């Protein structure tokens, strides 16, 4: 009985241990696909938790020099917008929705993506690109913003993630 109680106590202690590190995978290239990951990574650093961001597939747009400033909200195929699809397809809709959301975010002190990546990087967060995606899109290190810490294979990513919580977005 005492042993059992001790075991329960020990497990509770393990469960209550604070997070040490998070590794967040960003696989989508839309504004709403990228921001949650950035907010989580920055929030982790603000709480003294280590954080790595790993950009894969279209998520790479968030760290591509030529695309970082052009990331938009999806106005089609996004029921959360509550916008009829036929209106969502009108040229400029995505631009307009992004502009409106950007204004609101600035009010809340949420930085634009480029500045946000810089903030996370300066906070000690790691910025990594997925090797397979980089090859698939025929990119090189020069195509990325200077905050890029490296291009990792999936194996290297797992190695860096030892002991961390991995979050896929």
């Amino acid at each position, binding site marked *: 009985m005492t042993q059992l109680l001790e075991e329960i106590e020990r497990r509770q202690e393990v469960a209550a241990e604070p997070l040490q590190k998070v590794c967040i995978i960003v696989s989508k290239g839309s504004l709403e696909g990228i921001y949650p990951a950035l907010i989580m990574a920055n*929030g982790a650093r*603000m*709480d003294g938790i280590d954080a790595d961001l790993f950009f894969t597939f279209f998520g790479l747009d968030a760290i591509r020099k030529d695309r970082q400033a052009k990331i938009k909200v999806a106005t089609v195929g996004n029921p959360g917008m509550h916008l009829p699809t036929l209106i969502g397809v009108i040229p400029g809709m995505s631009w307009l929705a992004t502009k409106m959301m950007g204004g609101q975010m600035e009010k809340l*002190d949420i*930085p634009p993506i480029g500045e946000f990546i810089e903030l996370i990087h*300066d*906070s000690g967060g790691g910025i990594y690109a997925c090797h397979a995606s980089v090859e698939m899109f025929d990119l090189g290190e020069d195509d990325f913003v200077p905050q890029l810490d490296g291009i990792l294979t999936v194996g290297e990513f797992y190695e860096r993630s030892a002991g961390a919580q991995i979050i896929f977005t």
Partner: protein
Amino acid sequence: MTTIEVAGVPVERDSEGFLLHTGQWTSQIATDIASENGIPELTPRHWQVVEFMRERYLATGTAPSIRSLGKESGVPIKELYQLFPKGPAKLAAKIGGIPKPRGCI
């Protein structure tokens, strides 16, 4: 709630160590909370951040975000994390005797 005693005066704090009454704050309390949180000595750069946090809170009622802390306190983000490794905004708020910042940024 916990209480610390500084120079013979009891100071009330919440469960995380933030002061309940910001008016009770003194620079001695700041030094004590800092050393309790792994900062043995508050340098002028630490003070610059702590004072900025406190002044901003007293003026606006909310603590600044990490973004404005980096832009406006005169101490860049990289250095903020060197000065307060376990989270600059929260730790500087704690040391400055103001409530825990609740923003996500």
